[in-house]
């Protein structure tokens, strides 16, 4: 007969679970409210979601660094805390974008907000664990919610996008599961720290190396899908095009941050073990990703697709920092996303406020370049703000993304990869061309017979979100010091 297992509540350290529980409970509360009283306005749900995220944010802030909990599957280290803070901040910036002046039906469903909160809980699980199974559960929770959120948008290509994302995601999930299985077979554990110990002792055995390579190829494939690295990036532009603009902006930040954290944990482990092959593979993938995505962005006719390719290229840029496996490189990853978050969400929000119910300017695209031509004459402030975001994305100083770029380039130089820094620099130059293309359309071309209906979908909450994004983009130089020192402290505290 089995011994009864007694577990004391204190040993579970449930506070490590608190952030996810807040998000899940919040989602359930929203559903219950809907059950009790239907046809409530979306503004209620938006504000409640922000409040829940606020509590969530507070509970993350309250966590101590380097704690484990819940049978040691939860790992609250520095990067878990920063990435959760990033995820929550981006979500709080995103959700008010639902308050548009025009009605888009997905936001009138309370389920949208509940799913959104479940998705956040999923991402939080992903980043706050070093257990391969819990990471998998987190990935799937988040992804399944995200597929649904995409499909809720009112375009036929939203379904196409959701299904495409779903199939690709399923493939990635399969890769991930098989990769984890290989690791389990090798080491008898799904906990990364134990895996590291076992692999360390067996790394010299010749037969192990092949299995290690096999496992890492599968895992790399899985994360390449999730992060949209070349050659697994093909779903990205279509999915972004099908999703609503703010959701596309959100997808270019939050899932990427979560996946980058997991990649940092898993591939950092391989690189620490001296599996140089993984480092080379990541470097090759990231260089190809940033270069090819930039090339493809050059020929896009639609601003949203251009931004999709640009976000792929930014991921490539950041992924290279993971291959460096230095504290500075890993700091750069979070710094980059903390800055990129505001600029990119701002840019997508600018597309969102110019969104029409029907395609007025082009029969296939919602946001062709022509729509923005001569914008400086029609909406001077709008054009200036959009141009600020574009210049920031291009890496023109002193706007926010520039600081992320030089920090990562400097990390590359420090680690002895000067060629990588040069490649990054040249890629920024290529990228400048397509960002400039939009600036040229807005500032240097004549309006193409559009009236003042470009900013059709605008509203006060949207304007204030864009205002926050502008302030963060322009004033970044003033908060760089606290940001860098905080992130650096957190990353080095967790030993990355």
């Amino acid at each position, binding site marked *: 007969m089995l011994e009864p297992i007694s577990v004391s509540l204190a040993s579970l350290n449930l506070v490590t679970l608190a952030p996810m529980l807040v998000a899940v409970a919040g989602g359930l509360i929203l559903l219950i409210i809907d059950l009790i009283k239907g046809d409530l306005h979306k503004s209620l749900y938006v504000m409640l979601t922000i409040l829940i995220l606020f509590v969530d944010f507070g509970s993350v802030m309250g966590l101590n660094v380097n704690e484990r909990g819940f049978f040691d599957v939860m790992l609250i280290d520095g990067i878990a805390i920063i990435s959760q803070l990033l995820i929550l901040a981006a979500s709080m910036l995103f959700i008010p974008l639902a308050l548009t002046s025009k009605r888009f039906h997905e936001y009138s469903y309370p389920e949208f907000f509940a799913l959104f909160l479940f998705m956040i809980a999923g991402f939080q699980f992903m980043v706050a664990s070093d257990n391969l199974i819990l990471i998998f559960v987190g990935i799937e929770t988040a992804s399944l919610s995200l597929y649904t959120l995409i499909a809720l948008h009112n375009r036929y290509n939203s379904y196409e996008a959701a299904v495409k994302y779903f199939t690709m995601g399923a493939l990635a999930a399969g890769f991930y599961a098989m990769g984890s299985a290989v690791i389990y077979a090798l080491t008898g554990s799904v906990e990364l720290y134990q895996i590291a110990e076992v692999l360390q002792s067996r790394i010299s055995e010749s037969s192990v190396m092949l299995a290690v390579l096999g496992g890492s190829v599968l895992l790399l494939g899985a994360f390449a899908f999730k992060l949209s690295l070349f050659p697994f990036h093909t779903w990205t532009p279509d999915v972004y095009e099908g999703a609503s603009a703010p959701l596309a902006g959100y997808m270019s930040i939050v899932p990427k941050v979560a996946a980058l954290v997991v990649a940092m944990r898993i591939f950092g482990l391989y690189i620490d073990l001296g599996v140089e092959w993984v480092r080379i593979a990541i470097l090759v993938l990231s260089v190809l990703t940033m270069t090819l995505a930039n090339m493809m962005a050059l020929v896009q006719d639609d601003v949203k697709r251009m931004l999709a390719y640009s976000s792929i290229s930014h991921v490539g840029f950041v992924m290279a920092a993971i291959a460096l496996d230095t504290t500075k490189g890993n700091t750069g990853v979070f710094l980059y996303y903390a800055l990129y978050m505001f600029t990119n969400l701002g840019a997508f929000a600018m597309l969102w406020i110019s969104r029409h119910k029907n395609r007025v300017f082009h029969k296939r695209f919602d946001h062709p370049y022509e729509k923005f031509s001569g914008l*400086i004459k029609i909406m001077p402030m709008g054009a200036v703000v959009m141009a600020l975001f574009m*210049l920031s994305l*291009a*890496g*023109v*100083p*002193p706007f926010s993304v520039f*600081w992320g770029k*030089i*920090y990562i*380039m*400097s990390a590359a*130089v*420090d680690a002895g990869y*000067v060629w990588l*820094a*040069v490649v990054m*620099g*040249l890629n*920024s*130059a290529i990228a*400048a*061309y397509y960002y*400039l293309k939009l*600036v*040229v359309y807005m*500032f*240097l*071309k004549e309006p193409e017979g559009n009236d003042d209906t470009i900013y059709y979908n605008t509203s006060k909450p949207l304007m204030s979100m864009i205002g926050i994004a502008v302030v963060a983009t322009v004033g970044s*130089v003033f908060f*760089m*010091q606290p940001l*860098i*020192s905080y992130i*650096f402290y957190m990353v080095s505290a967790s030993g990355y």
Partner: protein
Amino acid sequence: MENILSVLIFFPAVAGLLGFVVDKNSARVYGISVAVVEFLLSLWLWMSFDGTNAGMQFVEIIPLVPDFGISYYVGVDGISLFIVVMAALMTMLGMISMNIEKDIKNMVISLLFLEMTMIGVFVALDAIVFYLFWELSLVPMLYIIGAWGGPLRIYASVKFFLYTFSGSLIMLVGMLFMAYLYQSISGVWSFSITDWYALVLPMNYQIWLFLAFFIGFAVKVPMFPFHTWLPYAHGQAPTIGSVILAAVLLKMGTYGFVRFSLPMFPDASTQMIMPIAVLSIIMIIYTAMVAYAQKDIKQVIAYSSVSHMGVIMLGIFAMNAEGIGGSIFLMLSHGIVSGALFMLVGVIYDRRHTKLMSEFGGLASVMPKYALIFGIMLMASVGLPLTIGFVGEFLVLLGFYKVSVIGTILAGTSVIVGAIYMLSLYKKSFFGPVTNEENSKLADLDAKELVALVPLVVIVIWLGVYPKPVLGPIDNSVKALLGFMHEKAQTTEVKEIITLSKNIKEAK
């Protein structure tokens, strides 16, 4: 006022922001008033500048990102002082002579932001702050060329932006590597140029870093293989754009060589004398010949501008007090002269809406004042003694004579070819009978244009006859720079090349 440099940098920027509020019919006057105040401030800087002190003055340091070694660090010495004054002067005169009706408010605001970046580049002593202003200067210029330019304006402005942007990103990698080297030696991060000066680097690092910075600066100068963006930018830009571009923006590149490359990499710079001299001489002769073949007056001046930039490069890499001092003086004189010439072309373009030489002829009889000022500026551009152009060019050639006699002779041909294309331009447009009916009723310079041009004529002759007030401080700082390079150089051969000649020739 110890913080006058910050005031100089941010006054135009604040004015630019406030300019959004000013009514568009008053924007021109607003812009001119701001530019005049800025110029007076720059004169104040000159007056309070201690000409006998060769080091940095009016230094301000405010840490921005201490963990990463970035601080707001500015200062001015004899090398940068006059370029700052010249930038303020040319912006002011350019704004006065400006003849643009369309979207004047946007133009004034862009110019004010551009002025901030120009001053910022020349006084920044932190590499990241320097880079920040350097890159930021592209944005208003992109808009000025792209919005008010000729038919190919968008192509020209994007080409200008991308060329400079790509070059400077390579320079950025160089800066990051430099900071890394500084950190690995001293243990702290710093992007301060004066900290970097203290580093003595092994030769192979110096060469690579020199090349990285070279690409950034050479595109801006523009050095010979990278110069193709310039004729487009000048050809398409509105008058004010060309004036600022030729007078100030190009100087950023040559200034960068003096501020960064020479003191930081003295050994590599000395090794690179010959390759750069060859490129410069090709640039001088080739573009002078191209200038002769042009049909468009503005293109002639654009190419002559490239040719003169070659002379400046040659002087910098002569590595002696005459050469570098002469180059810095030539930067000033070229700024004033080419700026004035572009303004003069703008004058005739506003009247006739063409810049082709074949359209003109006999202008001297119709527009005597215009012809006189054009003639003076043209002579200054060619380098006639007693004009501002002569002093710098003579000193550069004198300095380079010590490096290579043949090189000096080849470079000296630029004066001859310059005289040929400039005088033939003058002959075709100004002398002879009035061949084109439309030209017979052209109005001569009006008050506004005279206000902009006469001060430049005065400066051209004043500094041509008596350059000492400007040459003195320049010479002090240049000698300090050379002394520093001499001390830092690692081999005796390099030390020999970096000579400190004590008896600089003045006031020809």
